[in-house]
């Protein structure tokens, strides 16, 4: 048969993407490709070659019309690849063992956390200016043990069940916290009354569509106001294998607040809890910052021996994301902001974080 006479357009009908690349190849390759059926060759990806050079007969799995057979061939292809990968790994491992001490160090995979851009505002523990700044800022009274924290927890107007339960559970987690019903009062009027009654924190949980979604944390005498976005709230009954309700003053763990802004926020959280934790109660509240999201967890721990700890999660669990930090008490319209979240800032650099 005279294969060269068959026009190219004939073959061009059913084929999809690879056609432009494979057109020239197909013309010369017809004989092999035509009578080809599924089980002859393995799926080898098409190569871009010039018409002059000789190339191996290529065949792609995507050209088989029959769905079941195509699936089978694809599965085979995948298994082959997997086998090759395992073989390569074993080989590497052998080489590493053979070399012993001289083996090159194990490569650490790149993650966004370890590729994080160095932030120039990272606090150096020895820096005097920053130390002075922190010693004399709005939290100085708390850290010098002059005041005890007293927290007022309230919600936005007309809260639904979930938010109310969240507030109650928060009040058990934070010692010396009182929950008050909002009743449509203006925050700017509540604040002077709180100051008169010696409250040190005002916590307002904002609700949207029956779910808590925002948190305004205002340090009272004249302190900064932080506005967070709350997500992923899990109440006590939704936590699996949880322990009994918290009883004592917890210890506080603040992880990964490294920049200057992170320090301010970390101190804001630390000043919520009393300075003397009851170690007997073995309860700990953790604020873990990762990629600008702050995860709150509350656990009870027990040391089985020196190296092993058992933990049980109690209490609610939620994540926070800082939206703005405002100097002074709550005044969203006329207050001065120390930091405001800009919406598309992460788009330009995914490895740069603020906290």
């Amino acid at each position, binding site marked *: 048969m005279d294969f060269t006479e068959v026009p190219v357009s004939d073959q061009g009908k059913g084929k999809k993407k690879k056609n432009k690349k494979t057109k020239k190849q197909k013309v010369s390759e017809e004989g092999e490709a035509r009578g080809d059926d599924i089980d002859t060759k393995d799926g080898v990806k098409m190569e871009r070659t010039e018409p002059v050079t000789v190339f191996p007969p290529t065949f792609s799995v995507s050209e088989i019309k029959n769905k079941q057979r195509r699936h089978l061939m694809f599965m085979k292809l995948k298994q082959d690849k997997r086998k090759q990968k395992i073989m390569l790994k074993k080989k590497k491992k052998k080489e590493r063992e053979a070399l012993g001490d001289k083996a090159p160090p194990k490569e650490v995979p790149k993650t966004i956390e370890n590729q994080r851009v160095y932030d120039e505002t990272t606090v150096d523990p020895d820096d005097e200016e920053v130390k002075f700044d922190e010693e004399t800022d709005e939290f100085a009274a708390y850290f010098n043990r002059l005041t005890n924290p007293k927290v007022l927890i309230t919600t936005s107007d007309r809260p639904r069940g979930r938010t109310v339960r969240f507030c109650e559970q928060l009040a058990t987690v934070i010692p010396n916290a009182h929950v008050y019903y909002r009743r449509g009062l203006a925050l700017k009027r509540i604040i002077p009354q709180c100051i008169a009654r010696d409250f040190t924190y005002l916590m307002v949980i904002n609700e949207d569509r029956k779910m808590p979604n925002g948190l305004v944390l205002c340090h009272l005498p004249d302190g900064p106001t932080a506005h967070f976005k709350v997500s992923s709230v899990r109440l006590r009954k939704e936590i699996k294998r949880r322990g009994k309700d918290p009883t004592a003053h917890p210890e506080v763990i603040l992880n990964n607040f490294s920049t200057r802004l992170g320090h301010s926020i970390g101190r804001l959280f630390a000043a919520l809890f009393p300075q003397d934790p009851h170690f007997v109660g073995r309860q700990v509240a953790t604020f873990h910052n990762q990629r600008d999201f702050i995860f709150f967890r509350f656990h009870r721990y027990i040391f089985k021996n020196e190296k092993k700890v058992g933990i049980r999660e109690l209490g609610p669990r939620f994540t926070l994301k800082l939206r703005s930090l405002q100097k002074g008490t709550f005044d969203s319209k006329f207050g001065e902001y120390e*930091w405001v979240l800009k919406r598309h800032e992460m788009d330009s650099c995914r490895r740069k974080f603020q906290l």
Partner: protein
Amino acid sequence: MSVMDAWLGAETGLLKGVSVSRKQAVNFSSSSCLDRAQEVRALSWAGPGETELLVGSADGLVRTFSAEKGTFTSSRRCGEPHEGCFSGLHALGSALVTCTEKGAVRVWKEHSDVPVTEVRAGEHVHRMRQSPVAPHRVATGGKETPVKIWDLENPDKPMFTAKNLRDTWLDLRQPHWVRDMAFIPGTDRLVSCTGYHQVHVYDPSSPQRRPVLEAVFGEYPLTALSLPVDGHTVAVANTQGQMALLDLRKGLVCGVLKGASGSVRALQCHMTLPLIASCGLDRHLRIHSLQDRKLQHKVYLKSRLNCLLFSSNDPNAEAKPVKVKEEEEEEDEVWDKMESVHEDRGAHEEDCVHEDRGAHEEDCVHEDRGAHEEDCVHEDRGAHEEDCVHEDDCVHEDRGMHKEEKVQYTKGKNKRKTDSKTGQKKTKKQKN
């Protein structure tokens, strides 16, 4: 010390001098321990030459700082702390004009503790500014206190009092909160910005006491204002860190300067070059170029910054390397040697030497090259090469990093676009 490009006052009581071309920031303090009561509230030049600074702090003292010597030379008591912090401080020949937040504008003669003239400028004065043309004219304005222009030689009545805007369509009185103002050079007019995100232009020579032009920017109070050299634009900034250039002929926004993440407390344009410096609560000094509105320099200074003074140095010029005389002599010898040996290709030899690091014996020349490298290699964040370090802190520059990252990411985006386009083209042709 006249090398410093910008002087900043911080909330912790420090006076900071920043040299952008050398990437250094130096802290100056009048006492060995820091004190919040010395929070710097007002900064101004003490005279026409930029050699001395007047630093007004929250405890009511005005200190004079000598830029040449690098120390505080004298201090004066100009008011009690309970009267409010300084909202304006200017030099009037050899005398001082100060203004407190409670509205007392006072003129202090040298070496006297009692003010010569005192003017009551309202209940709350947020800012007082001096006219660059006529130094005895000052403008004041504050919350519910309209803009007033005073002539200090006739302090009984203000020369010009602005009238509040007309009542709204509901016949309600419009609230009034002047936060900053500036005299437009060349004309008699005055620009002011308010806490209700308005910018007003007043013309005292016209019979109209209401603003001649009103422009609006953003939704947050405008905190600072500055006039660039060209005269028909004004730069404003608000409490959320948004900075913009407004055109004064029509009142429209020309462009926005991006970068600040916190409230901007002070803005100043450079005297001759199209540059603008800003500082604020986010603890950074930023210098933008006015022509392309791009960020040129960003310096992290660890405390919240209250006020700013731009010197007339060119921050983009390469810094002259500061050297001790002996080194210069040694250098000269080395250069002389080189020239004498290679007369024809003298220029080429020098170039080769610049690239060739660490070669030959030139220790002193290495220092010289070190300074040049600092200026040239802007991208290198790790450039800790300092010529003569007698300060406490050294500040890392961030500019280069920003540029690199932007370049990387835009390249990536372009690549992906072209690929998809070619893919689409291919399929289209086949269908035809």
